[in-house]
C-alpha cells in the first residue's frame, strides 16, 4: 500500500508540526517538559479552555460567538464585586445567571430572529465593554480579605497535586462531550450545523437549538469568569480582552470546522492545550509576551486554510 503523503499532511500536518515544535522547545528551553511546567500550562489554558467548551457548541451549529472576551471581563468584574457585596455563594449564582442571560440574548437574536451571528456577537462584544465600564465606574475591583475566603479554591486550589481550574476544565470537558455527542440536543446541534434546511424538514426546532448553543456558551464563560476572579482575586476592565480570538484559534486548531456540522469537545481540548504549549514554549525560548497575538493569527490562518484545502482537495485555490 502506498501512503498518500499529501492527504496525510493535510490530516495530521498540524499535529506533526506541533510535535516538531515541542521537540525543538524541549531542546532549546530548560524545564519545558517538567511536570511543574506542564501543570502550569494546563492551569493557564483552563480559562480559555472552559470558554472554548461552550463556544464549540456554537461553532458546530456553523456560527460564531465573538462576545466571549468582553463577557468574560464583565462576568469577572461581577463575581469579584458581588463577592464583596453578597458573599461567594451569591456572587457565583449571580455570575452564572448573568452568563446564561447574555447567552440567551445572543441566542434569541441569532437563533430566533435569524440575524447574522458575526454582527450580533461583535456588537455584544462592544456593548459588554460599555456595560463593564458602567458597572465598575472605570476602576479595578478587588476581593476584600482575599486571604480568608474559600472562593480562592476555584483559581488557586489544588487536589492531589492537580490545580482545581484544570479539574474544572477537564471535568467540564467530560460533561460537555457527553452532551454534544450523546444527547438529543447535541445531535440537533450537529444536524443544524450540517444542514439547517434538512433539519427543519426533519422537525428539528432549529431556532431553539441555535439559541441553546449560545446559552451554553454564556454558561461556560461564566464558569471561566469564576475561575478567573478566584485566581486573580480582582478584575480589571480589560481582563478578558482578546480571549474571543484565542478561544476561536484553539477550536480551529483542534480541527473543528467553522462551516459547522463537525467537531468535538476533545478536539477543542487538544487544540486549546496545544495553543497553550506553543505560547508557553515561545515564552521559555525568550520571546516577548505579545508574541502570542502573532501566534493566534498564524494559527487561525493556517488552520482555516488547511480546513478549506481539505474540503476542496488541494492546497491552493
Amino acid at each position, binding site marked *: 500500500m502506498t501512503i498518500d503523503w499529501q492527504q496525510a499532511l493535510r490530516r495530521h500536518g498540524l499535529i506533526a508540526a506541533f510535535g516538531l515544535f515541542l521537540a525543538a522547545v524541549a531542546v532549546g528551553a530548560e524545564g519545558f517538559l517538567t511536570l511543574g511546567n506542564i501543570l502550569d500550562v494546563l492551569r493557564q489554558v483552563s480559562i480559555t479552555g472552559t470558554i472554548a467548551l461552550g463556544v464549540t457548541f456554537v461553532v458546530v451549529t456553523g456560527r460564531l460567538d465573538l462576545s466571549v472576551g468582553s463577557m468574560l471581563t464583565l462576568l469577572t468584574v461581577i463575581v469579584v464585586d458581588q463577592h464583596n457585596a453578597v458573599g461567594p455563594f451569591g456572587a457565583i449564582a449571580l455570575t452564572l445567571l448573568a452568563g446564561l442571560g447574555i447567552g440567551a440574548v445572543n441566542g434569541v437574536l441569532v437563533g430566533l430572529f435569524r440575524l447574522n451571528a458575526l454582527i450580533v456577537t461583535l456588537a455584544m462584544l462592544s456593548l459588554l465593554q460599555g456595560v463593564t465600564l458602567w458597572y465598575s465606574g472605570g476602576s479595578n475591583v478587588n476581593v476584600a480579605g482575599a486571604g480568608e475566603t474559600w472562593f480562592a479554591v476555584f483559581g488557586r486550589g489544588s487536589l492531589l497535586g492537580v490545580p482545581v481550574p484544570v479539574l474544572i476544565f477537564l471535568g467540564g470537558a467530560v460533561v460537555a462531550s457527553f452532551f454534544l455527542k450523546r444527547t*438529543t*440536543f447535541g445531535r440537533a446541534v450537529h*444536524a443544524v450545523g450540517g*444542514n439547517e434546511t434538512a433539519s427543519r*424538514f426533519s422537525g428539528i426546532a432549529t431556532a431553539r437549538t441555535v439559541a441553546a448553543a449560545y446559552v451554553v456558551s454564556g454558561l461556560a464563560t461564566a464558569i471561566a469568569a469564576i475561575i478567573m476572579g478566584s485566581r486573580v482575586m480582582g478584575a480589571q476592565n480589560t481582563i478578558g480582552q482578546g480571549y474571543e480570538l484565542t478561544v476561536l484559534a484553539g477550536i480551529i486548531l483542534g480541527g473543528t470546522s467553522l462551516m459547522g456540522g463537525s467537531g468535538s469537545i476533545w478536539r477543542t481540548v487538544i487544540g486549546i492545550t496545544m495553543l497553550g504549549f506553543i505560547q508557553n514554549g515561545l515564552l521559555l525560548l525568550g520571546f516577548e509576551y505579545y508574541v502570542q497575538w502573532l501566534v493566534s493569527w498564524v494559527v487561525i490562518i493556517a488552520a482555516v486554510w488547511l480546513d478549506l484545502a481539505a474540503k476542496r482537495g488541494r492546497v491552493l485555490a
Partner: protein
Amino acid sequence: MTDVILSVAGITKTFPGVRALADVSFDVRAGEVHALMGENGAGKSTLMKVLAGLYKPDAGTITLRDEPVTITSPLVAREKGILLIHQELSLSPELSVAENIYLGAWPTNALGMLNKRKLRADAKAALDALGCDFGPDVRVGTLSIARQQMVEIARAQAFNADVVIFDEPTASLTDGERRQLFATIARLKSAGVGIVYISHKMDEIFEITDRITVLRDGQVQGTRITADTDLAGITRMMIGRDLASYFHRAREDFRDEVLRVEGLTHASLFSGVDLSVRAGEVLGLYGLVGAGRSELVETIFGLRHADAGRLIWKGQEIPFPTPRQAVDLGMALVPESRKEQGLVLGMGGRENVTLPHLAMFSSAGVMDRGREREVFDTYRDILDIKTTGPEQPVEKLSGGNQQKFVLAKWLCAAPSLIILDEPTRGIDVGSKSAIHELIAKLAEDGLAVIVISSEMPEVLGVSHRILTMTEGRISGSFTGDGMTEQALIDAVSQPANRAVQEDIA
C-alpha cells in the same frame, strides 16, 4: 472520418479507491445529438468534467477536429470550443446578460477599458441567432431558469463552440420551456455543432438524440443508433439485466380518510386547494414546475404558514402543525431536493435515519445508539441500500442510495401519511423501479400516499387518482380510465396558455 468533431480514446480516471472511468472511447459527429446514458455513478459526470477541463485524465487522448488537445481548465475548454452547460447554472445574477455571455473574456478597447458597445452588439447577435426573446442588458437574476439557460447556450454561439455538453438540461424546466430548448438544440445541430446530451428522461432521449452511448461502472457498454434501439434495449445496457416491469400500482384497498384539506390558501403561492387521501390510496399530484405543488405540501407539513383553510386529520379538524407536530401526528415528507432538504450529507446513515425521531431513539435525552444501529441495519436490508456502514457519510453514496435513506428516515417511525415530492428525480433506472415498487407496497400496507411528480409516466403509473395543479389551483381530478396523458396535458396547459396570451396582450 471527417464529420467526427470530437473523439475521446482510452480515457481512464481513477480516484482513491474508485476507478471512475476505464478506457472510455466515444466520438461526437458534427450536427449530431449524442446521448450519454448510465446509472448514477456510471461515470457520466466524470467524463463530462474531463472534457470540460475540471478533471485531468490519468490516461487517454482527446481529439478535436483531428487535432489532439489537452484541456487543463474550463477556460481552455471554452477556447478550444467545448462548452459545458451545467445542471446548476453558473451565471452571475447581478451582471447583465451580455456581461455573463462573455464572462472572463470581455472585449476591451486600446486603453484596456471595457468596450461596452462591442460587448452589447456581440451579445445581441448571439441572442438573436438563437431566437431569444430578451435583450443583452437585462440583469440575469431577473430571468427565469429557462432564460438563464439560454444565456449559457448563447455562450456557445458567441464562442463558436464545436461541442456543447448538456447536463440534465430539462430538470427544472416547464413543458413549454423544454420545447423551446429542443428547438434551440435543433438550431445548434443544423449549424454543425456536436451535442452531448445527458439525461435520465428516456422520452427525451428517444425524441431528440441520434446516437446513444451507455456507460456502466466507468466502462462503455456500447453505442447505438437511437432509431435502431428501444427503451428495453438501453435499460438492459444500463443495468446489465432486464427490468421486469417499470411501474407497479398498488392493489386497491382504500380505508379511512387520513388527511383532508379544504380551501387551503397561501397568499402568493396557491389558493382554495381541496384534497383528501385515504389509507391505502396513492394520490398523484401532477403539474408543471412552479405550479405550487411543493409549496402546497410544505404548508401541510408546517414548513410554511397557511393564510386560510382547514386541515382534517383522521376525521378531526386540527390547527396547522409545526413540522415537529406534523412528524408526531404521523406525517412524513420526502422533499424534492434530497441534498438540500432531505439529508445532512456529512452525517452517516444511522444519524440521518433517526434525525426526525430523536425523542423516539433516546431516553431521558440520551441517544440510544444500539437501537439506532438496529433500525439502520433493518432499513439497509429492507431497502437494499449500498453503504459501507452506519457511519459512512451519506454524501459518499449515489443518488439512489441517498434517496433510500431519505425514505428510511420516514418509514422507520411508521407514519400514516407519506408525501413524496419528485421521489425519483435524478436517480437511475434501477433505483427508480425499486422506489416505485416500494410506493405500491406502502399503500398496500395501509399508508396514505401522495406522490408529486412532473414525470407523466411515473404519475400515471403509480397513482390511483390524480389531481392536476396549475398556477396554484387544482385544475383537474382524474381516476381510472380518465387518467391519460392527454387529459393531464389538457388540464395543466389551458390556464397556462391563457396566461401567455395575457402576457402578449
